[in-house]
């Protein structure tokens, strides 16, 4: 399973259990459409840190980085390659 698929499955399972993973577009705005609220965002960041072994406390975080599945995947990619900004 690709990373973006894994992120999609996690987001659907945790925050949008009424839809199927293949129904969630990678560019769908999770924040503006209320899929992920503020506490969900903390849970999501916590999961990303643990799943991908990222020291999330060291990153210059912004909600924008978690706006969509594609944005989350890009954040993880950048974090793994570059480390904290």
């Amino acid at each position, binding site marked *: 399973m690709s990373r973006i698929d894994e992120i999609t499955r996690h987001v659907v399972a945790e925050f949008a259990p009424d839809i199927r993973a293949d129904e969630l577009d990678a560019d769908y705005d999770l924040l503006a459409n209320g899929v992920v609220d503020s*506490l969900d*965002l*903390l*849970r999501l960041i916590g999961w990303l840190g*643990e799943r991908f072994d990222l020291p*999330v406390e060291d990153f210059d975080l*912004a*909600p924008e980085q978690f706006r969509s599945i594609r944005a989350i995947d890009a954040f993880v990619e950048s974090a793994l390659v570059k480390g904290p900004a």
Partner: protein
Amino acid sequence: MIVWTDEQRTLRAAAAELGAAAGEDHLERDPTGEFSRTGWALVRESGLLGLPFGAEYGGLGADLLTTMYVLEGLGESCRDGGFPFSVTTHVVSTGIPLQRFGSAELKQRYLPGVCAGTAIGAHAISEPDAGSDMMAMRTTAVLDGDHYVLNGSKSFVSNGPIADTVMVYARTGTAGAPDAITTFLVERDSPGLHFGTPMSKMGLRTSPLSELFLDGVRVPASNTVGRPGAGFLVLDHVMKWEILLSFVVNLGEMEHRLRECVRHARSRKQFGQSIGSFQSVSNKLVDMRIGVETSRKWLYDTAEKLVARKNVTTDVAITKLVVSEANLASALAAVQVFGGYGYMTEYGVEKDVRNAVAGTIYSGTTEIQRQRVAAMMGL
């Protein structure tokens, strides 16, 4: 178990010494809610305000655990509970977000004042209609050229009456969205910024608190702390530090209170024997001891986990809940152990109860901490 170095012990001993001095005449100042300017001068001189900040800004560059250990000493020695609360509010409200999220320019401009204590800090989060539900805040910030214009009002601003700089959290996006809040560093003399008169309160009276009103306050966009829309994440970081630093002070207070209660229970004689020999009294002291040890474990374990860059969202919520409730239970037990003397204001024991109630409310109520833990469990 953490083994403290001689250097850490020396720092703690110095904090304990100044705490005792800063707490003098606390019984006289409590009814009038008078902040200890003498204590502030002492704490400024000691360098304690710069504990967790870099030497390049005038700080001591201490790590989180050392900072907590020293503040625990302050809590253990200072009988004026409001004073350490103002100290930790100052450190966490402006210094901590600046250090973590501030631009190089902002750090250079404001962190030296935080470390030296020349610019007292506060943060403005709660509003009349948005306390625990901060995402519902109404205070707005609208970009106008290279400035943001802030309008709204804030309630319960600790250090408000004495603050020189305030970290204001305002809405820049759609209400309720996780990216709706932005953090701004605002100077006290900004046109349109007005502080209310100090508010009378149940406890922590010597730590002054007021409302804050923002009427078209123009704040340079460069005074944004963290990215626009990242205010919720800035606050999450601040709350982790606020809970660890403010409540480790409570741990020190509980240690002192337990020691005094044991001393009293051993020396106070009733029915021909020390009251500590009665199981109904000794059980209270044992519960107080359990509260101390449980609080210490949660505080320092969570801090070690945070330093190790682990996710501590749930741990911080549990820590806050455990320590604040243990502190309140300990303060109430102390009144019972001291009996009539505990109830009289002149012994200072009842004041601890009033102070401890505040701990179950500020930084997120006990109820909100439970809700947060439940949310982290996916409930």
